[in-house]
Structure formats: C-alpha cells, structure tokens
C-alpha cells in the first residue's frame, strides 16, 4: 500500500500538515517498508486557485492508494475519488505515527470531503 501523507517537513518525524492542497510536502510512504518519496508541494502552497486539484492529480499520478491528511476539500476529493484513491481525514501526529496507526487498521475511510470549497 502506498500512502500519501501531507507533511510540514520532509522526513518520517514530520508533523502532518492539516492542509492537503497547500501542504508544504506530501510524503509517499510504503506502508510495509516505510520507505518513502518526498513530493515538494511548494508550487501549490501559493497557488491562486486549484491547489487541491493539482495536489490530488499529483498523488494519483504517483500511484498512491490512500491519502491521509487533516482536511480534504471537495474538489481534491472528487479527483481522488475519480482515481479510486481512498481518503482518511482528521489525521494528526507525525508521519510515522500515521503509518503505524494505518497498519494497525485504526482509520476509517472518508465517504465525502470534510472541508468547504474556498475562493
């Protein structure tokens, strides 16, 4: 399983960034080996509009199976849903803690976005 986790910095000890589209980094972590790839999301941090759409399209292209983040907006959710990528919202802690919690089967997949669209 490939997990895409929004993060404030670029290592496994990083705090989860509550924002998905405008997170500083998105870490693509292999749930079993904990090996990871860093996606630098800085281009989207200051995007005028559509940051969530771009971030979602990027993790889809990278072959993520699950997105774990704080808040996922409706447009990002729509993209992820289209690509059959599952979403877990309201995630807190460090990236490594999130991977462990995921492996322990303690998360529930979202059935809709948990943040309003904003302009």
């Amino acid at each position, binding site marked *: 399983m490939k997990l895409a986790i929004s993060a404030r910095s670029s290592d496994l000890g990083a705090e989860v960034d509550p924002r998905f589209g405008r997170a500083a980094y998105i870490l693509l972590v292999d749930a079993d080996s904990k090996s990871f790839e860093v996606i630098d999301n800085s281009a989207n941090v200051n995007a005028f509009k*559509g940051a969530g759409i771009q971030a979602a399209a990027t993790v889809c292209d990278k072959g993520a199976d699950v997105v774990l983040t704080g808040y996922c907006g409706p*447009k990002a959710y*729509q993209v992820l849903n289209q690509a059959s990528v599952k979403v877990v919202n309201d995630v807190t802690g460090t990236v490594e803690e999130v991977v462990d919690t995921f492996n322990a089967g303690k998360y529930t997949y979202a059935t809709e976005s948990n943040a309003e669209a904003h302009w």
Partner: protein
Amino acid sequence: MIISVASGKGGTGKTTIATNLAMSMGRSVNLIDCDVEEPNAHLFIKPESITRTIATTFVPRIDTERCTGCRACAELCQFNALTVVGGCAMVFAELCHSCRGCYEICAEAAVREDFRELGEMIRGYRDQLRLTYGSLRVGEAMAPPLIKQVIAAGKDDNPTIIDAPPGTSCPMITAVNQSDFVLFVSEPTPFGLHDLTLAHETVKNLGLPCGLVINRCDIGDEGLRNYAHEQNLPVLLEIPFDRAIAEAYARGILLIDHDPSWRPRFLTLYADISAMMSQPA
C-alpha cells in the same frame, strides 16, 4: 459617450450620482448598473416593461470516449479548471474563465462546448431612459463575465452612464474599462480619501480621463480636496450632508425629484464632462 461612475469605497453615492445624472438628461440615455452582486439602481429608476434573460458562459465538457488523457488542455489552463485523472480529463467548471483554449487545443475533439449559468440580465424603461442591469447567480464566484455581457447589451449610440461596482478589483476594472470618462464619487473623510486614491491610481493606469464628485462635502477634512488639487483631478459637483436628502434616498426617491433645483446642476455636470472630452488632451 460612456461615463462610468466609480469609487474605491462603497456607500459614497455612486448610485445617487449615476441615477440622477441619467434621469436629468431629458433625452434618450442608457443607464447600466454593473454592480451585479448588489444591483440597486432599479430601486430609484423603478423601470417598466421589464424583460429578463439568462446569461451563460462557455465551459468545457469532456467526451470521455474521445479523450486520450494527453494533458494538453490541463497544461494550457491557467486556472486549474481541467486536470487529468485516470487517463481522462476532468472539468471544474466553477474555475473556468471561458477562454476556450482547451476547446481549440484538443487534437481529439474531445472538448465539447457546454455552458455555465452566470445569472440574469434585466432590462427596463422609464421615460427616455433604458436601464440594463445584471444579477449574479448565487454561488457564481466571478462577476466580470456577466458585467461584460450587461455592458454589451446596455450600451448603444446614445449617452451611457455606468454605475460601477465598488473597489478596485476585476469587477470595477471591467465596468470602467470600456468607458470614455470616469466620474469618481467620494466623501471628504480619511476613508474616502484612502479608497479614492486607490481607485484613482487604478484608473490612471487604464489611461482614462476622470473627475470627482464630493458627496457629503461639508463633513470631514481638507485631505480629499488637497489630493484632488495636487492630482489635477477636477471637482465637478459637491453635494452637502443633508438629512432630507438621506431620507429621500432611503425611500427610493431621486434627488432631482426630491428637490428639482438639482436637475440643472446634474445637467451642468454632464455639460462639463462633455466639454472636457471635446478638448484635446
């Protein structure tokens, strides 16, 4: 000639000036209320023979049978209104600015024309005045596409007065950009001066000639007049702070109907603007 009435600050008297100027003229005239988020000129004009038209704008629709997921459209779009997921383009219509670039660039003819509703265009008449205004659909984020359509429908060869939206962002610029002259309305307060300065800077960048109406001219301080003097911004009309004027406004009564002595002053205002426009710059 198209005169747009603008201000940085809201609530300075744009609609008062636009409606009274248009109704004073005693000839065929167009009044266009471009404040599509909060139109109010009709409350004073009380137009008759009203017609309403739904205004729409282009948005793409993807033919999923034809789309190869080549990304040409998504890479072209500057507003992220298209993205490619799972080998097929996906549209976010509310982000689309209707440039039709995706429609032009698609080699597979997979981008089809669809439409997003912008709101309503409303047309009505009173005496020799033709009023056109727009009402933005609740939930629509972009005012300029509707403002452009309202102006196109509302102007003709007769003199045209545009009541512009407040502020200095895209809706205001869209409304004033097609005019020949910008008439600012402000009040002599620090807020009035601050926001007028922003609006004036904006209009200077557009290269349009302009003048100033000072509303509530007997309150505040000298800052606005000093600014107008320094900037060679001619003060074309002053209206005092008068409770009777405010009461008439609150009842939807035009200043020129409340006190007919104002009509010649608005006619002079129009004559002064015409004279400024006929002089070589």
